[in-house]
Every structure is written in C-alpha cells, then in structure tokens.
C-alpha cells in the first residue's frame, strides 16, 4: 500500500509501474443449449499493462479479445481471478476510462460538439466547463469547423474521430479501443493509424487497442499480445522496438515485416492460419 498517493481531488491512486493487472482472469460462458459444453471465452490469464504504454491485442474473431477488453472495462465480471486497475479490484464499470468501439455510436440527434460533450453529461459533469477541452480535441483530430455538423453529414473516418474525442474528453488514464478502425476503408485506416500517437498522446496515456489486423497491431503497439481461439488465450506477447511516432514508410522496413511475420508465424503455429501445400 506504500505506493498509493493522493491526487488533487484527494483520491488515492497507485503510482505503481503497472496500471492494469490481470490475475488468473478467466471467463466462461455457460452452455447456450442442452448437450453443448460451456464456452471458455478466456482461459485463465495473468498479464499486466504498464502505465503509459500502448498494448495491442491481435487475434481472429472469436478469440476472446472483446471479452478481455470488457473484463478490463468492468463491463463483464470474470468467472475466475481478478482484474485490478491502480491496485484496486474492478467490480463494476471502470469509469476512469474512455472506450472507443468499432461502431462510432454517435447520437444522431446531437451535433459533433454535443456528441463529444455527452461524455461529461453522462458523468454529471457540467458540460459547459468541458466545451473548451472538447474544442481542443476536435481541433487536434482535424475537425475544426465541423462542431455544428450532424453525424449523418460526416464520413466514417470523421465520425470515428468524433468518437475518439468523446472517449478522451474527461482525460481518462486508460483508453480501451475495440477494433475502432475495422469498419473504415484501408486508406482512412492508415491515416488514423498515423495520427493515432498524436490523438491519444502516446507515452502519457495507457491504451489497450484491439484489432484483427496484424499490421495494425504491430504499427500501433509498444507491445503486441497475440491471441488464439478455442479456448481464448494470449499465446505470446511481443515487444515492438520501433521508434515513435510511427510513420507509414516504416511499414516497408525490414524490422516492421520481421514483427508482422513473427505474428503470422504464431498464428500458423497455433493452426489459426494454414497454408495448403
């Protein structure tokens, strides 16, 4: 307990190196119908997420990535083990986090500014005092001048930028992203990936980013957790030793492809990917 310090609001928090601790966390969904077995969505996992790092979790659909994220967000309860953030066990929704989903989930009847401010309203914080920060965030993601636009007037990439601003409005220490770029076209996705460091203030903020795209996982992550399905588990964690901020030309470098082929070979090892020779 000696690494607890008080912040300006008098809340105690841990200055420990690890922000998120998974201690033998497992999740089992009961069988949906008679005669079938319970589904092990996540085999007991012990991992830690360091403060200020960007961890990407890559795996095929159904490997338990989203379950893992929901457990860390406190949106689901583990069947075994425990999740702690800042040294405290997560027992309900962990609200000092910002979540970005695959769908932008913007409210169609609110304009861009009000969609960002919903984060404050939902938390019963005075939205007016967050307007300035919302504007700064919108400027940062390149949406200056679009404050009064409605979601249906924006492109998919712009909408996802708005949802990133919404997730960051309350300056959360942890950002959880569940395939946020998966619904976007490849070019828009590349652009958002390049801008990503700037958006989340890489280095200061802890980000857990889920993707099924191996390139994206390597490109964005300080560490990549490779997940394999049936039962869902983290097969390996790879440190990505590439300079930040990452640039697109990096994708052509041999170091980059070394990492992506490492991930691919892991999937082949576990039978997720197969060559037919």
């Amino acid at each position, binding site marked *: 307990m000696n690494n607890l310090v008080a912040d300006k609001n008098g809340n105690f928090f841990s200055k420990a190196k690890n922000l998120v601790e998974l201690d033998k966390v497992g999740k089992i969904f009961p069988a949906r119908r008679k005669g079938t077995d319970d589904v092990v969505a996540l085999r007991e996992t012990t991992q830690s997420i360091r403060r200020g790092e960007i961890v990407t979790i890559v795996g095929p659909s159904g490997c338990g990535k989203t379950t893992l994220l929901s457990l860390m967000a406190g949106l689901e309860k583990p069947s075994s083990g425990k999740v702690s953030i800042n040294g405290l066990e997560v027992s309900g929704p962990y*609200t000092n986090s910002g979540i970005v989903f695959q*769908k932008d989930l913007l*409210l169609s*009847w609110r304009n861009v500014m009000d969609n960002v401010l919903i984060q404050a*309203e939902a938390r019963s914080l005075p939205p007016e005092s967050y307007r300035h920060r919302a504007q700064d965030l919108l400027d940062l993601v390149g949406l200056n001048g679009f404050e009064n636009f409605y979601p249906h007037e924006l492109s998919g990439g712009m909408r996802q930028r708005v949802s990133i601003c919404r997730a960051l409005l309350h300056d959360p220490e942890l950002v959880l992203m569940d395939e946020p770029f998966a619904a976007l076209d490849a070019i828009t996705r590349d652009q958002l990936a390049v801008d990503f460091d700037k958006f989340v203030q890489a280095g200061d903020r802890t980000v857990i980013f889920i993707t099924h795209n191996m390139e994206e996982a390597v490109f964005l992550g300080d560490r990549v957790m490779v997940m394999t399905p049936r039962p869902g588990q983290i097969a390996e964690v790879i440190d990505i030793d590439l300079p930040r901020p990452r640039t697109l030309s990096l994708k052509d470098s041999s170091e980059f492809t070394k990492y992506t082929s490492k991930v691919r070979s892991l999937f082949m090892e576990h039978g997720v990917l197969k060559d037919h020779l």
Partner: protein
Amino acid sequence: MSVLKKITPILTLLIILWLWEVAVHFFKIPVLVLPAPSDIYRSLEQKQELYFSFSLPTLLEIFAGFFLAAISGIFLGILVSFSALAKSSIYPILISSQMVPKVAIAPVLTIWFGSGLMAKMFIAFLIAFFPITISTMVGLDAMDPEMVKMFRAMGAGRYKTFIKLRLPAALPNIFAGLKIGMSLAVVGAVVAEFVAADKGLGYYLLYANGQLDSPGVFASLFLLTVIGVTLYYFVELAEYYLVPGVLHKEGNLNNFSM
C-alpha cells in the same frame, strides 16, 4: 417548385370537388343518394349554429380521450419497457384486451358511465391508447445494446441513460404512435356518440341519416374530418418542435386500423 408542391393537395381537392359537383348535376343523382358539394355547403351555412354547438362536445371528447391516451400510453410503454415484472404481468393482458372489440363494449361503458362526456372520452381513450403504448415500448426497446454499453462505461445510471439516450431515440416512435392514436380517438368518439348521445356530430350524423337528410350527414362527416385533420396537425406541430430534425419519421397510418 416548392410553392407548387404546397398548393398541390389543395388544388387536387378543388378539382375533385368540382368533378363531384359536375357529376352530380350531369348524372342527375338524387340528393338523398349523393348530395353535391354545394348542397353540403348550404346545409352547413343554414344550420351554422347547430353545427358549431354540436362540434364542441365532439371536439372535447376526442381531445380529452386522446390526452388521457397519450399520458397513460407513454407511461405504460415506459413501464413495460423498463420493468421485467410489468412486461410479464401487464403486457399479456394489454394484448388480449385489444382483442376485445371496443366498439362492441361501448353500450356497456354507457351503462357504467352514463351518456355524458365521461363514457365517450373513455371509449376514445380505449381505442387510442394501445398504439401509443406499443410504439413507445418498441421505440424504447429498439435500442442498440452497444449504445447502452457505452453509456454504462461512461458511468451513466439508468435514469441518465433514459433521459439522454433512450427517450430521445424513442421520440420518433412515440410520435408515430401519437399520430395513429389521434386518428383513432376520432373513431372512438363518433362510435360512442352512435351508441348513446343527445349532442355531438356523431349523434347528429345518425339523426340526419334517420331524417333522410343526406346533406346533413355529409356536413357532419366534413366537420369530423376537419376536426381530425386539425388535431392531427397539432400533434405534428408538437413533433416538429420536440423531435430533433434529423429523427423525423412519418407515422404510418396503414399499420393500424380498427
């Protein structure tokens, strides 16, 4: 172009009325079978005061019945959508109660509530409130579960989620239900007046029919239509101000009928 679009319905109506007038004179149709628009107008003009004094009670019955239906329909819709207990207890009764032909229980209600405003308002209410309840419930239930999940992650409680997410998202559905309910309330009030009344347009319609006064029947029909359309547009006006523009949806009258 937009001016033309606005006057198109009026123009169409005028053409139809003109064709009607011409056809009645050309084919020498007896007034008893089909009065010409000019006959109806004459009837309206001659008995101005009577029509006016008979319009008021009907208007009141429709409005009161609809108002009651709107309040209780929205309330029940919210209740059923929110509480599993309410859904399993009230909802089945609600559905089966709708299978009772309400027109047929009008005489019973007249015995219970007498022949005054109360009975007619109640019948209008009974017919109008069901679509309002159902569309409120459908609107509230049609929520994207991920949206709800996001609100939960933002720390919003049930009340906050309702006010900021569920209710605004359900408003277009609620108003679609209100519009349908509005038109059904007219039916309810008229049916109630058919059964037992000493005033009102429904009563006069039946009376004029008995007197073989076809222009009177049609004049009553015309006034009922005017009342119905006017009240309907009041609901639409409320929708215009309460529902954010991007959500506007047309209420579909074809989905519900008596």
